[in-house]
C-alpha cells in the first residue's frame, strides 16, 4: 500500500471517529431540511418550488461543519509536523486529506441530498441530478473548504474564521449547482450549470491543495 493510500484510509477512519463524523453532518442536514417547512409553511407547491435550492444551500452549510477539524487537530497534536517529514509533498498530503474529507462527509451528504430534496417536495426524477450535483459540489466544498481550514490554523475560534473565509468560496458552486437544479425543474437545459460547477470543482482540486500547503507551512513556522 502506498503512503498516500495509507494516509487516505487513516483520514477516513479518523473522520468517522471524529465525534460521530459524517453522522453529525448528515444529521445537521436532515435537521435543516426539517426546519424549512416549519419556517416557510407546509404548502407542497411552495416547498416544491424552493426544495432543490434549499437542499443545495443546506448541503453547503453541512459541509462546513467538519472543516474545522480537517487540519486543526493534526496541527495541535503534532501530527502535521510529522506528516511533513516524508518524501511526499505537502500539497499531496493536503489533497489526500481533502479527498478523505469528501469520502467521509461529502459522499454521505450526497446520498442524503436527494432524500431531503424529495422530502421537501422536489420531483423524484430530479434525484440523480441532485446526487450528481452533490457529489461534484461536495468535492468543491471539500477542497475550497480546505483552504479556509488551513488559513485559520492556530487561530482562536478557528471554526468561525473558517466559515467566514470559506463561504465566499462556496458561492460559485452554490450558484452553478442551484442553477442547474432550477433549470432542470423548469424543463430548461441544465448541462451548462452542471458543467460550470464541475469545472469549479476541478479547479478547486488543482489549486486548493497548493494554497493549503502554503498556509500550513506558514502556520507551522
Amino acid at each position: 500500500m502506498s503512503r498516500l493510500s495509507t494516509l487516505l484510509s487513516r483520514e477516513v477512519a479518523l473522520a468517522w471517529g471524529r465525534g460521530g463524523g459524517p453522522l453529525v453532518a448528515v444529521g445537521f442536514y436532515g435537521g435543516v431540511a426539517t426546519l424549512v417547512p416549519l419556517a416557510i409553511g407546509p404548502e407542497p407547491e411552495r416547498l416544491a418550488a424552493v426544495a432543490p435550492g434549499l437542499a443545495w444551500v443546506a448541503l453547503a452549510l453541512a459541509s462546513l461543519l467538519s472543516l474545522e477539524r480537517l487540519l486543526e487537530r493534526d496541527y495541535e497534536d503534532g501530527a502535521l509536523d510529522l506528516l511533513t517529514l516524508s518524501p511526499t509533498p505537502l500539497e499531496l498530503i493536503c489533497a489526500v486529506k481533502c479527498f478523505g474529507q469528501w469520502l467521509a462527509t461529502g459522499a454521505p451528504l450526497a446520498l442524503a441530498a436527494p432524500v431531503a430534496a424529495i422530502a421537501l417536495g422536489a420531483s423524484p426524477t430530479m434525484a440523480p441530478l441532485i446526487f450528481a450535483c452533490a457529489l461534484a459540489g461536495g468535492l468543491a466544498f471539500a477542497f475550497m473548504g480546505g483552504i479556509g481550514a488551513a488559513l485559520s490554523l492556530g487561530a482562536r475560534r478557528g471554526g468561525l474564521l473558517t466559515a467566514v473565509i470559506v463561504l465566499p468560496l462556496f458561492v460559485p458552486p452554490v450558484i452553478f449547482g442551484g442553477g442547474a437544479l432550477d433549470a432542470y425543474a423548469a424543463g430548461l437545459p441544465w448541462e451548462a450549470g452542471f458543467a460550470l460547477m464541475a469545472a469549479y470543482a476541478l479547479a478547486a482540486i488543482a489549486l486548493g491543495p497548493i494554497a493549503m500547503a502554503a498556509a500550513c507551512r506558514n502556520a507551522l513556522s
Partner: protein
Amino acid sequence: MITALELRDVAVRRGGRLLFEGLRATLSPGEARALTGANGSGKTSLLRAVAGLVRLDAGEISFGGAEPSEARGAGLHLVGHQDGLKPARTAAEELAFWSHWTGGTPESAAAAAEALELTPLLELEVRRLSAGQRRRLALSRVLASPRTLWLLDEPLSPLDARWRQRFGEMMAAHVARGGMILAAVHDPLPLPARTLEIAA
C-alpha cells in the same frame, strides 16, 4: 541521505523575540549532542528549524551536501512535545501508520514494539496508555524506520529510570551504527555526548 549536520550562524526569532543568533555547530556520523539551555531559550525552536518547521532569521542549515527538503523528508526523525498520536486509534494502528509513513516495514515496526516492550499494549487505544507508555510508543517510531538523524525534544522526561537507561542504550546503539542524535535535554544524556548550549 544525511551525512552530517552543520549549523552556520543560525538565528531564530519567535513572536518578534530573537531567541538566539550566530549559532554554529556540527554533528558528524556516530555523534550525539545534548542541546541544553534554560526554559524558553529556543531548544525546541532549533530542533524544529533543523526539521524545516521554523524559518531561520539568519544563517544556514545543511545536511552534508544533501538537498535539504530531501534530507528532511527521508533522513530525519523528530520526536517533539506533541507526539501526533491519535487517542482514539490503537497503538498498533498508530505505529503501523507512522512506520510506513517514514519508510519502515511491518517487520521493523514489530521489532520496534518488541524492543520497547509495547507488544502487549498494541491493541489498546492510545488514550488508555500512561504518559510513559505513550512516550515509548512515540519513540518506537524512530526505531521502526531507518533514518540517520534523530531530533529528540526531551525524549526521556516521562520515562522511568529503567526506560531511561534502556532508551539510552538504544540511542547509543544508533550512534554506534553511524547515526546522529541532537537531543534537547535538561538532564545529561545517558550516553557520551558533547553539549551544545543555547545561551539565554
